């Protein structure tokens, strides 16, 4: 029998980005809140301090801030004809663990989605005709619009102190910003980053071709900033140890730096670390959650935490595992297309182009910051005419200078041997003289891409692993290669000696790192037969369960996800505070 704890109003599963935001909102509303985090406590001091933090081997290669696959991983296959095998060592994506979650070691590239991204199906059908969307794609509208989310994007950006320049201020197109973005109600809270050399080379070439470059919105502080919560963040030192590292300088918007201390102050909030939640507990009729069951990793005791409201904040795909292991909702079946839990798992379709320069051109790629980059958005979403192209969506193209830690970063031209003296000479020759362009593409949901429980493999706590069935649909491959071809045209004007296009090919492999932008599986929508949660991220099936994070995305637009994760968290928290608490029950009928 599990130990039974005193009931609380709210239990948060996972204590990363979304949990910190929701926790603060609900604790402020006077509710008793318990946060359960499988990992340990982490803070800027002492955990993220230099010199130990500037250790590429420990943090970037051995992944010490990331989910430990020995305890919990996923199985993977490209399609249902294959047998899924465990991802024994993480590669393609790296979910976070410990307090702060992945928002401790993210890069901080903080985008909004386009207004049309929220209505993917109706937008393409009305603009290009009902037959335009390929039959294998299961893209849907979100059930929430850009205009509805705008105030919440704004609030998240002011919380996180994003540095950028508005491209569309209340409908007016502003020079220097992204002219394609949806209208914003006010400027960014902080100035944009300045151009690094790679960005400048890219911007000049892009301008020559008539594109409109701008600086990527950055959660690496561009000025000292005190946010509306009263937390002060410090300017980024541009150290080049950002993605996969904690920030020693209080300069990257992690929960610890922008909000968590304010939540920890609350008497009605309690954090329990090393508390690994294994399921949401339900009433016999499965209509109501009674709390959660977790394992205390210190004592190995099973503990029941009763709660009136359960909020899953364990990172998108982990939320899906919890829903499935708890028996919430109906699992998706790719043969019939019915069921909703696990449906529309999507990813991010990445490609790249490299420009190799003469030895006289010092790029200094190590002078980096996670979101230091210059981008164009001309080929994202439906910012360009898709007639006759045969694909949906698009990508932004950016010259990022995020750092150049040499175990993982040592670019060489194609055709270079993989080892030996010629490889070594090429590494020496090109390390400081190469610019990589990132093609950051959308990932459209497809009928055969989904998440369910693995029939064979279990985690360290005996729970079935989440099984991922995924490959890039044709539409995404065409999209990535189309944008790569446009990018190559820009790259040829960047003054290098050699341009090397990196096309997108299939099958998808879990070995090389791509992004930790895993989306879908508990998607939002306006119809309970085709979505897992309603527009407020509330489970259709068990209304006292809310599911935060990118699991809600019906498909993944061509941007990094966290701006929208943050906006949705505030949007959902407001609905809980102002509607649900007054009248607990379904917010949409």
């Amino acid at each position: 029998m599990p130990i039974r704890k005193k009931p609380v109003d709210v239990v948060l599963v996972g204590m990363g980005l979304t949990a910190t935001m929701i926790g603060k909102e609900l604790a402020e509303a006077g509710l008793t809140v318990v946060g359960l985090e499988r990992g340990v406590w982490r803070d800027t001091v002492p955990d993220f301090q230099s010199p130990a933090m500037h250790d590429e081997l420990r943090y970037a290669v051995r992944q010490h801030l990331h989910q430990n696959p020995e305890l919990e991983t996923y199985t993977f296959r490209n399609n249902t004809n294959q047998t899924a095998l465990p991802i024994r060592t993480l590669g393609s994506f790296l979910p976070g663990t410990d307090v702060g979650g992945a928002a401790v070691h993210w890069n901080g590239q903080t985008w909004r989605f386009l207004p049309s991204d929220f209505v993917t199906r109706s937008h393409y059908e009305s603009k290009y005709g009902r037959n335009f969307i390929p039959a294998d794609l299961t893209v849907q509208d979100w059930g929430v619009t850009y205009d509805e989310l705008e105030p919440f994007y704004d609030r998240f950006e002011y919380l996180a102190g994003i540095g950028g320049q508005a491209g569309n201020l209340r409908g007016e197109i502003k020079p220097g910003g992204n002219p394609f973005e949806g209208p914003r109600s006010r400027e960014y809270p902080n100035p944009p980053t300045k151009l690094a050399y790679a960005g400048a080379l890219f911007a000049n070439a892009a301008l020559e071709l008539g594109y409109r470059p701008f600086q990527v919105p950055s959660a690496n502080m561009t000025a000292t900033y005190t946010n509306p919560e009263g937390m002060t963040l410090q300017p980024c030192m541009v150290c080049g140890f950002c993605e996969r590292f904690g920030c020693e300088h209080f300069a990257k918007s992690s929960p610890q730096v922008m909000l968590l201390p304010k939540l920890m102050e609350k008497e009605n909030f309690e954090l329990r670390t090393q508390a690994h939640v294994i399921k949401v507990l339900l009433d016999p009729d499965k209509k109501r959650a009674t709390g959660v069951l977790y394992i205390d990793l210190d004592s190995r005791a099973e503990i029941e935490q009763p709660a009136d409201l359960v909020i899953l904040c364990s990172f998108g795909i982990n939320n899906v595992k919890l829903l499935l292991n708890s028996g919430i909702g109906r699992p998706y079946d790719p043969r019939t297309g019915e069921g909703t839990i696990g449906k529309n798992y999507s990813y991010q379709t990445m490609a790249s182009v490299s420009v190799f320069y003469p030895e006289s051109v010092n790029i200094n790629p190590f002078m980096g910051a996670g979101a230091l980059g210059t981008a164009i958005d001309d080929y994202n979403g439906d910012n360009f005419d898709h007639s006759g192209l045969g694909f949906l969506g698009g990508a932004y193209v950016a010259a990022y200078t995020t750092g150049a830690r040499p175990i993982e970063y040592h670019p060489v031209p194609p055709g270079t041997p993989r080892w030996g003296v010629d490889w070594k000479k090429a590494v020496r020759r090109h390390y400081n003289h190469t610019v990589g362009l990132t093609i950051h593409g959308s990932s459209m949901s497809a009928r055969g891409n989904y998440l369910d429980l693995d029939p064979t493999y279990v985690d360290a706590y005996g729970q079935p692993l989440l099984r991922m069935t995924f490959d890039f649909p044709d539409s995404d491959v065409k999209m990535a290669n189309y944008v790569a071809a446009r990018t190559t045209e820009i790259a040829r004007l960047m003054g290098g000696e050699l341009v090397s296009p990196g096309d997108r090919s299939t099958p998808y492999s879990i070995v090389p790192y791509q992004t930790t932008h895993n989306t879908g599986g508990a998607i939002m929508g306006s119809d309970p037969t085709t979505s897992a949660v309603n527009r407020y991220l509330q489970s259709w099936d068990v209304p006292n369960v809310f599911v935060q994070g990118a699991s809600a995305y019906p498909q993944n637009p061509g941007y990094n996800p966290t701006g929208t994760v943050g906006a949705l968290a505030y949007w959902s928290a407001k609905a809980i505070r102002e509607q649900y608490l007054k009248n607990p029950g379904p917010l949409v009928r």
Partner: protein
Amino acid sequence: MTEIARRELLQGASALGLAFALGSHASAQTQAAGQGSVYLFFTETEAQFIEAAVERLIPSEPEWPGARAVGVPYYIDLQLAGPYGRGDRLYLRGPFAVGLPGQGYQLALTPAQLYRTSLAAIAREFGPSTPFASLTDADKDRFLRRLEAGELTIDGFSSAIFFETLLANTIEGYFADPAYGGNRDMASWRMIGFPGAFAAYAAVYTRHGLKFDRAPMAMAEVAHHDDHHAAPATAGAAR
């Protein structure tokens, strides 16, 4: 470190030194290059193969030492003797099956077991009289290419799996902070112009094309330069 000692290292004259640097902050600077290293994991025969192989993967050139000279064999040895070797952060539950390339590593072996098994198979391949290390460079490369292409079967698995692990570990040791026993004197960082662990470029990143030739600094040295990472007293303190 004196100039003379550094030059010796750069010339690859010494393969001795810093295998015990882990966890000791100042070791990269204070341990003299003449001190001996010892293998904790590899047997003598295994070490002979590893030393010879990593030197072909990243060979020495007159100006720039290769993997062996900067201590990569000791780096790999320490890794295999420690948590990484024991399968730390590796999911090792069965059943095991041969996967597709896109499914990644699927052996039931920890890295230490993978090396032990593979090195034994390789030793059998050569026999005791003419070990790998005694081959000419061209023959060594030919054999490594066979491993890379998976032409050998080791205990039922492709030699490519071992080769890729060895290559990845060699590159790690070559470029990792010297605290881990490889990259002695930060030779690889000097070679490519990576300034290392001490890093704060806010004031210079906008000076495009700047020739930034400050000597690199390892974590052990940065430990003595704690001015730049002092935490601001007001920022973000928890509780």
